[in-house]
């Protein structure tokens, strides 16, 4: 069966520090991969999605970037965190475009 791993579960970082969140999917190949963010009191916002290695689409301009160095690995990064980057970050995958998304357990990021 397919599983998705996302880490760390919680992270506290100072303003201006770098960020790297990692997500991996097991049990499938060539998945579509996504990064979402849930800010306090708001819905889930799509940040990035990828349909293949090295292919990244950005949905909103922001202080973050994403990379997909391997088929089942998706990384969310920032060179310098802002206070507004605080939130709950969720990685998700789907086997193909006509299947629902499956989410990881998320990373709670607090920028201080």
């Amino acid at each position, binding site marked *: 069966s397919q599983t998705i791993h*996302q880490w760390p*579960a919680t992270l506290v970082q100072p303003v201006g520090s770098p960020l790297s969140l990692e997500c991996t999917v097991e049990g499938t190949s060539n998945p*579509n991969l*996504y990064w*979402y963010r849930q800010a306090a*009191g*708001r*819905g*889930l*916002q*799509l940040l990035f*999605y990828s349909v293949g290695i090295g292919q990244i689409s950005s*949905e909103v301009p922001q202080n973050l970037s994403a990379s997909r160095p391997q088929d089942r690995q998706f990384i969310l990064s920032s060179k310098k965190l802002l206070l507004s980057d605080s939130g709950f970050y*969720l990685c*998700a995958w*789907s086997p*193909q*475009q*006509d*299947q*629902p*998304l*499956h*989410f*990881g*357990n*998320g990373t*709670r990021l607090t920028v201080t």
Partner: protein
Amino acid sequence: DQQVKQNSPSLSVQEGRISILNCDYTNSMFDYFLWYKKYPAEGPTFLISISSIKDKNEDGRFTVFLNKSAKHLSLHIVPSQPGDSAVYFCAASLRWGKLIFGQGTTLQVKP
């Protein structure tokens, strides 16, 4: 511009009764709608979906209704159980994968 809206941030119902969660959308081009359930500190889990060519889909205690003319989606849970207490997100898609989520509704089912 909030294309998918859940106007009720919270809902409280008694165990055994019906829970009705509502969702409105603005884009008539959405072709697929989904409901996700989320517990604290966990990722959302897929609950039920409906294609825009249907007006109802049922799965056990969960039924989703779609009213395209009103651009309205609802989730019915019957009977409600305490374990159903969670945040429920509706989502819409122009094509699979790029889901647009509502703000969520926190459901509390009281024993």
